[in-house]
């Protein structure tokens, strides 16, 4: 507990302090004078705004894609499949989660490569490296994080509710919208927090398949690499702020207990 308290919160504190410092224009070293310049830059610089919006859009797209893919999969797993199939599907879903993140991103690099990629050679076209590729790969990477909580939520949902809805004359779609979805809301939100937060901070995938696209993560990494630690720290506050807003909004629904 102390570890988390001291190291983690301490680090976040240090991050905040660093974000207030500035760099010396000539030597490039960090000058420990407190100012809000970095934050002023964040708000006024149109590039930062574009990057933030792009990152948000990517994270939202990834979350929506994962939701669309995970819902039928988890539903089949929890309510249709036999015990044996369910076990196999569960393993199939968990296995890629343990396989290295980098290896998976690398697989997609091989597929999407605009010149020599496998997709180009077999299908004749490829989205190439860019935002589309980044969204697909991120959705691929985080799919289990969405599917597992939804599956857990569906497991808890009594079958009799579905039967009852059917007996009352509701079709499959109606049952889904009016019975399953509302009850699944906490699980979906839990999954969405994962996919959203994982996407928002990612820069590795974007570096591997994103081509020239820039996200918040990339810019932080770039500033960090060029020694402008204060700017990187200030920029890192943006995802923190976004996540705190999301978590506070979600907390009211009780989904945090499902994380």
């Amino acid at each position: 507990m102390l570890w988390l308290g001291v190291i983690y919160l301490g680090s976040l504190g240090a991050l905040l302090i660093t974000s207030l410092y500035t760099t010396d224009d000539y030597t490039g070293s960090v000058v420990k004078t407190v100012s809000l310049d970095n934050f002023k830059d964040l708000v006024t610089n149109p590039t930062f705004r574009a990057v933030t919006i792009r990152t948000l859009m990517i994270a939202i797209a990834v979350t929506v894609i994962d939701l669309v893919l995970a819902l039928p999969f988890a539903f089949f797993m929890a309510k249709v499949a036999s015990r044996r199939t369910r076990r196999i599907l569960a393993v199939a879903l968990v296995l890629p989660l343990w396989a290295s993140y980098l290896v998976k991103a690398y697989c997609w690099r091989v597929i999407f490569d605009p010149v020599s990629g496998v997709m180009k050679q077999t299908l004749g076209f490829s989205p190439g490296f860019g935002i589309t590729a980044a969204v697909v790969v991120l959705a691929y990477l985080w799919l289990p994080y969405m599917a597992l909580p939804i599956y857990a939520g569906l497991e808890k949902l009594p079958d009799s509710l579905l039967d009852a809805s059917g007996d009352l004359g509701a079709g499959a779609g109606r049952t889904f919208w009016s019975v399953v979805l509302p009850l699944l809301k906490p699980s979906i939100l839990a999954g969405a927090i994962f996919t959203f937060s994982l996407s928002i901070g990612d820069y590795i995938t974007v570096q591997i398949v994103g081509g020239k696209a820039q996200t918040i993560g990339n810019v932080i990494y770039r500033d960090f690499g060029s020694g402008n630690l204060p700017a990187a720290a200030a920029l890192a506050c943006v995802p923190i702020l976004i996540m705190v807003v999301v978590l506070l909004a979600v907390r009211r629904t009780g989904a945090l207990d499902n994380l």
Partner: protein
Amino acid sequence: MLVSGPARVALKLATAAVLAFLYVPLAIIAVLSFSSSKTFAWPPPSYSLEWWRAAIHETGPRDAFVTSVKVGLAATLIALVLGALASYAVQRFKFFGRDTVSLLIVLPIALPGIVTGVALNSAFRQGGVTFGYFTLVVAHATFCIVVVFNNIVARLRRLAPNVDEASADLGADLFQTFRYVTFPLVRSALVAGGLLAFALSFDEIVVTTFTAGPGIETLPQWIFNNMFRPNQLPTVNVVAVIVIMLSIIPVYLAQRLSADPTGGLTADEDG
């Protein structure tokens, strides 16, 4: 049954499509690692074990692998001890700020890795700590604690609190209760949490980039550094396949350990 006719077929198709989405990329790399060609020629012109043989003799990936295992083990050990203590405290005792602690625990997993990385980096820098194995292990332990904590809290929540009381009534002291009652009951959660923590650490690259000292290269870092070098690609393919194969071990272990088909990853079952 529950789902009828066309809906059933549609669900089946969707499931099959998702499975294909999950596994086709991995399969492609596996096939390519046996290709005789140095590029991604598809389908491979012919198959050979050439790159496997070459990769096994390379020291780069092997050293990186050893580094990853060392860091993973150290971080997991720290996480197990601290995570277990923290979860026990949160679950068994009521104290000021308990709810805040629960939210605090969620933070490191809800916040992006790059934030954790930059934050830890600036903390180490301001504290004047030299970057090296020590900083790397501390950083890894920080996010490993979270998964251990989550696993154990979920288990403790499921246990009836009166087993502790029963043990005390039968004359056991606190230590005996822990040794003979609580510990055996949470053992599998501990193992599952430890496995997950190790896997997370083994796979981590973002926080690693920000907290490892110069000269330290973990396996993910090696893969990342070599991925953009066309000459190294055949070796990267082989290393990738080996890493994918390695991931079967923890899944198998997790399966053996728990009746839960997801291997404890949905530890919130009755949360």
